[in-house]
């Protein structure tokens, strides 16, 4: 029960007025940067580091955590309202969320995202407080072969993001996989498909691709359709708040999302994107209203949003217990710790319990603050959609461009953004789903490098993939998920002929 005592102790630290103020500044800043595509929480923490050098360590680390959580929240708002994911982890939210917003259900979409983030963030923070030391022992047992197997599961399940036609979905996925090959090959250091352009050596930036395909592509598409048919947008249809049915459909998705997000976020190479894919496909399979997917199903917003927030808390597990930063923001927080001569790692819990538990407790508080802050704003945000379309989309183009060049000031980046915008337009025009492109870019390079690492360690023996129990289990899950629909279909046909 030491953890309870320590947590109570942490709460008293986090509730000090100065620390509350830091948490508030953090969540406000985080929400603001989460809304802007391209400017993520990592950049914000980097810019604040020299300023916070003067402050006391507890306060500034609490503020950084607030920025991290706030960023995860803010990213979903633009995803839902204007189909522009502020971060790659909120891309899946755009799939259903934006459809809901266009159907006048932006209010409930934003509300389920905010409450879902709160619920999942709280579950994950409890997990962080009580399970961190055990979870981390399991997490480091994950070897390259196990990550590869996890990617296989992700690849199989992303077919849920394909829309109606698997062929079109696969085409999109392969465009993404191809883009993932661009840049320096991680394992040999050789450049691939860079055509002598030095800016391409680091590969294609995920946010540039997502913003180009989603935001710019959408703006171009809307502009091209104006002569043919005017799409009428109703900012609000029905209640602004979630109905009883919305609650009923959301709460299970929140919990399932948290259960995907937290453990995968805690893996040293897990990340926040994969749990959102897994959550989306699970909700789609389990939903009682599968026909609504693709036209605005609330579970498709609730699950992934819960998953990405839980994953954010999950990344703090390896950071605090091992000193392993597993996301860009966590890396910045590590730099923040080191600035004060603190080394996160196995000794931090013992050496500075006040700091660790203060941070964990402040996560609860940041979560609560975000909910209080965001729910009343839902009504205001939804009004964004009442802006006349030409103005709204001009604004989106400006924001998307500013965000991209702020993150990476280079003409090549702008050209890529434009090219991806045009690609997004063409894909929309011919009815190809765009999400699998981004999925391919994220998963492809991870799957490739983990497989090659696994084979390199095993001296080229492919059996390593089946010898590891984690990997074997995950591969079996992937196989079942892949084959089961066909088998069931076949059985159905078999029965039909028998009858």
């Amino acid at each position, binding site marked *: 029960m030491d953890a309870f005592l320590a947590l109570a102790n942490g709460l008293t630290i986090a509730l000090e007025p100065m620390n509350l103020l830091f948490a508030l500044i953090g969540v406000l800043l985080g929400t603001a940067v989460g809304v*802007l595509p391209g*400017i993520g929480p*990592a*950049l914000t*923490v*980097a*810019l604040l*580091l*020299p*300023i916070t050098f003067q402050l006391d360590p507890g306060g500034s680390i609490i503020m950084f955590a607030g920025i991290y959580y706030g960023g995860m929240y803010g990213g979903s708002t633009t995803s839902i309202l204007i189909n522009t994911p502020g971060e790659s982890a909120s891309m899946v939210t755009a799939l259903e969320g934006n459809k809901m917003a266009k159907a006048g259900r932006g209010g409930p979409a934003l509300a389920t995202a905010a409450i879902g983030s709160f619920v999942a963030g709280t579950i994950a923070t409890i997990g962080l407080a009580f399970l961190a030391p055990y979870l981390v022992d399991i*997490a*480091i*047992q*994950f*070897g*390259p072969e196990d990550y590869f197997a996890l990617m296989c599961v992700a690849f199989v399940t992303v077919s849920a993001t394909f829309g109606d036609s698997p062929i079109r979905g696969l085409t999109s996925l392969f465009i993404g996989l191809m883009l993932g090959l661009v840049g*320096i*090959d*991680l*394992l*040999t*250091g*050789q*450049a691939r498909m860079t055509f002598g352009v*030095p*800016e391409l*050596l*680091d590969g294609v930036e995920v946010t540039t691709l997502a913003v180009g395909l989603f935001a710019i592509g959408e703006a171009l598409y809307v502009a091209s359709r104006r002569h043919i048919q005017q799409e009428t947008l109703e900012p609000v249809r029905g209640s602004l708040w979630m109905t009883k049915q919305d609650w009923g459909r959301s709460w299970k998705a929140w919990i399932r999302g948290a259960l995907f997000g937290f453990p995968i976020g805690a893996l*040293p*190479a897990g990340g926040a994107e994969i749990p959102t894919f897994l959550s989306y496909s699970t909700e789609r399979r389990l939903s009682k209203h599968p026909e609504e997917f693709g036209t605005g199903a609330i579970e498709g917003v609730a699950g992934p949003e819960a998953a990405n927030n839980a994953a954010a808390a999950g990344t703090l597990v*390896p950071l605090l217990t*091992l*000193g*392993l*930063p*597993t996301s*860009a923001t966590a*890396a*910045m927080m590590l*730099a923040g710790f*080191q*600035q*004060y*001569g603190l*080394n*996160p*790692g*196995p*000794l*931090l819990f013992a050496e500075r319990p006040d700091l660790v538990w203060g941070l964990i407790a402040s996560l609860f508080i940041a979560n609560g603050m975000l909910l209080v802050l965001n729910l009343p704003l839902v009504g205001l945000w939804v009004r964004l959609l009442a802006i006349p379309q030409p103005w709204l989309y001009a604004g989106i183009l400006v924001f998307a461009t*500013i965000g991209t060049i*702020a993150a*990476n*000031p*280079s003409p090549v980046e702008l050209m890529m953004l434009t090219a991806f915008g045009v690609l997004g337009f063409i894909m929309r025009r011919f009815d190809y789903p765009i999400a699998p492109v981004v999925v391919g870019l994220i998963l492809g390079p991870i799957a490739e*490098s983990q497989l090659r*690492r696994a084979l*390199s*360690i095993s*001296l080229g023996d492919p059996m390593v993939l089946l010898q590891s129990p984690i990997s074997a289990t995950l591969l079996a899950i992937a196989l079942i998920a892949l084959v089961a629909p066909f088998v069931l279909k076949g059985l159905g046909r078999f029965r039909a002929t028998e009858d």
Partner: protein
Amino acid sequence: MSQYRKGLWRSALAAAAVVGFVTTAAAQMELKIMAPAAPGGGWDQTARSMQQALTQAGIAKSVQVTNVPGAGGSIGIAQLVNNAKGDGNQLMVMGYVMVGALLTNNSPVTLDQTTPIARLTAEYEAIVVPANSPIKTAKELAEAVKADPAKVTWAGGSAGGVDHIAAALFAKAAGADPTKINYIPFSGGGEALAAILGGKVTAGISGYGEFESQIKAGKLRLLGLTSPADKATPDKPSLTAEGVNLEIANWRAVVAPPGLTDEEKKALTDAMDRMAKSNEWQSILKAKGWEDSYVSGDAFAKILEQEQARTKEVLTSVGLVKS
């Protein structure tokens, strides 16, 4: 947003500069420091620490930090050489990693085109094994590498980086063929650390700071550092003193654009000399755990030349650079 932030920055800097101006009337320089990497990494932290020390010590009136990320600094150096020629107020942070990156990326711009100013800090590479590994000493690891280099798997940072080069030099020092080493690059130190802790690889190689807390917690065994023998201490043994002749340091330095006059070069070098001696810089080094390895002027230019030659040789020998 970024404009707004820049504005904030400028006013903060202006305030700092005013304070600086009061302390020394000689503060006239308006410096620009480019970190050829994204915010948060080592080069960025070095640039921002320099900004802090230079303004607080009153050596410069203002210091503006810019980030030009990409390809291990290849993008940044191209901008420095092509767009900042003859600008006596511009500096760029760089390090040993850039020497290798420019070679493996086949960069059209080389470090010979810049004006070397000073080396600031250094960090030694550490070789570790999991605490339950049968390998106890550096000598034993060297014997294992000599017996069959492919069976010893190394986890470290990106291909062609300082970790990779150090692993190749270790094999060479052990009397094995460096082209045969089984080096597994991970993105960032964190992932590599997880693989070492999980016992997925034989040994890990990276900057000492990456492993420090795990070594102290007894989860990793430190076999040695790539430091000179005379720097060895009981808890930081030197590989050379342990009988494996390997010295390499991951240093960070500043260079200026080409085409500077001798006065401009001297002004920048003087500013760095004063910064290196300042209390502000010394306290930053202590807080960040960076080792002071200050060398300026021609002595640094010579080091830079030697490091380029040695790195090219190693990278060619492991097949990353074609001769």
